[in-house]
């Protein structure tokens, strides 16, 4: 594994070339972009199923079959992020939650005919013209015959909306993405969204997992929880452009939380979350709403909230696409 780290500036080592020269690497962004694939609020489950068949031979040119059988397979997965908040009253919201992520080793010593895994890896999200955002799809790993669910992510919880968030009374107030009974992590007492009961999303009902033992992403070793997004209100009633939107990123820099803060980008009322999201992810050379936005740099990031001035409904953006990688050698 190649690591090109500088010792001069701790924390600033740049990219780590994970697995370089050690593994074959396949990176897949299924149905990326703003497609409306499956989600918890529509019936399109199954469209984005993938199958990974174990490679039989990792040898170079001229190697005979099974001359160099695969000995190790790693599966890296980032679940899609949830949607940012939408709304129709004058206000703003918080980005959605990031998708959870996980790394597994795949057992290569399976009988012939069973050397594959199946994954439901739906991306995208449905913009719901409603208050609050859209929960993310839930990726899962299925057995070769799809008779058994071996792993299931929890959904990333959607962003919330708060009317009058950028008013003169909201100086430095922090709005987290979830409701009072949701997975809110309160770093301080300013969890204002919990008091806006009309404007937050209920967590998705959990009940689709084959084995609930594997549902909870409760490890910081190889299964990493979702991280909440939040917004910080500016002072002096400087409108929405003075609100800081803070995302959780999934860029494999840390086992802890990784957030990035972007101010309102100069926008005020009546912009969709998609406009905001695409603008913000130009931090990573992003493109436009229909063209993959920012590739794997946005993997699993929460969507961005819309900005509404009242009178019309504006949707939050969908979350960052999920990404999976397979390494093998």
């Amino acid at each position, binding site marked *: *594994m190649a690591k090109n780290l*500088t010792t001069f*500036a701790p924390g600033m080592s740049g990219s780590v070339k994970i697995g370089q020269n050690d593994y074959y690497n396949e990176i897949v962004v299924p149905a990326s972009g703003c497609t409306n694939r499956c989600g918890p609020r529509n019936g399109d489950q199954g469209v984005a199923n993938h199958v990974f068949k174990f490679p039989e031979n990792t040898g170079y040119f001229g190697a005979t079959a099974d001359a160099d059988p695969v000995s190790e397979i790693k599966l890296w997965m980032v679940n899609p992020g949830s949607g940012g908040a939408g709304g129709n009253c004058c206000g703003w919201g918080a980005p959605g939650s990031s998708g959870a992520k996980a790394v597994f080793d795949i*057992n290569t010593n399976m009988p012939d005919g069973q050397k594959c*895994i199946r994954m439901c890896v739906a991306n995208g999200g449905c913009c719901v013209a409603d208050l609050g955002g859209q929960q993310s799809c839930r990726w899962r790993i299925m057995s070769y015959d799809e008779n058994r669910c071996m792993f299931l992510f929890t959904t990333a919880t959607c962003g919330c909306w708060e009317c009058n968030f950028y008013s003169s009374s909201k100086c430095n107030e922090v709005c987290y993405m979830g409701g009072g009974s949701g997975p809110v992590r309160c770093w301080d007492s300013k969890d204002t969204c919990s008091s806006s009961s009309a404007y937050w999303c209920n967590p998705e009902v959990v009940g689709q997992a084959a084995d609930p033992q594997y549902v909870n992403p409760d490890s910081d070793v190889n299964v990493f929880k979702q991280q909440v997004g939040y917004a910080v209100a500016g002072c002096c009633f400087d409108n929405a452009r003075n609100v800081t939107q*803070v995302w959780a990123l999934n860029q*494999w*820099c840390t086992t802890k939380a990784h957030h990035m803060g972007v101010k309102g980008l*100069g926008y005020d009322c009546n912009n969709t979350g998609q406009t905001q999201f695409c603008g913000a992810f130009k*931090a990573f050379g992003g493109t436009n709403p229909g063209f993959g936005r920012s590739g794997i740099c946005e993997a699993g990031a929460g969507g961005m909230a819309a900005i509404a001035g009242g009178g019309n409904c504006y949707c939050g953006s969908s979350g960052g696409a999920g990404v999976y990688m397979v390494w093998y050698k």
Partner: protein
Amino acid sequence: MAKNLTTFVKSISVGGSASEFMPADTRDFHIYDATSFALNNCACDYGNQTHNWCVPPGISTATFHIWGAGGPGAAIHACGTAVPSGSGAYAYKTVSVTPGDCYNLVVGHMWCCCAEPGTGATWQTTPVQNTGGSWNGYGKSYVTGTGLTNFCAEGGFSGNSVSCTETGYATTMFDSATAHYGLSPNDSAGGPFRACYYGADGGLRGRKGYLSHNGLGVSSHCNFRAWVALPNCSVWGKCGGHAMLAACCNAQQPHDNWRILMANLNQGYCAGDNVTQAQNWDTAGMGSGFGVSCGGNCHCASRAASGKIRVLFR
């Protein structure tokens, strides 16, 4: 906690965890990244450069890493080119922190900085960074709060215009092998016009961009190479260096030049309109590109990169 899911998906044992593949100097820290850019003309009008970071419960130490923005690109005369601006300084400092305390993060920005093209034909010898010029410290990144005193990293110094009418333009400047730094006729890489940092545990000063020729002779308007100062310890695991950007006659659109530079760096670029492209986190602190005009209109020079701040805490 190990996950032994099935006979198909087994856990990664001790020593093989995902963290092994993460950068050793960040994997055990929480990270807060602060950006500074806008999607319209004037970031500073909207306070896009200001952030508050408050210490979460259970956190006792924070290290602030700050980069000043790249210097403002110089104007390009109706006939002439420009020396790329300098890169911003970089600095870091570690402090003990108390949960609930908040720090004010101000990220140097690269907008509001492009002066209208000048009409003079002399070297612009006065760097505007600290003298009340149009740049006026907007490129500076700094953090205030408990344990920090005058902790800041300056933005890069401005680029400078080079007019076709200048003495030596066709001979000593662009028909020789000498690099041209441009802040004064005898400027050099180690000259005085480099961004500084203060109040830090350590850091690096900004560096200069410069011009060189392409071996084609000055009669060729494709003769120019600009060497753009890369960010300090920000990207690609390196501290410093330059990236080369070439331009021919009338390649003077500032956003296009910046976009080309980003593409050359394999950082990708935005397909959107000109004012929104390539606000790239990895290039923060980078100096400006340049352009070449062969007559006609004056132009603003290429954009530079904004600054950034990263907080590592645990």
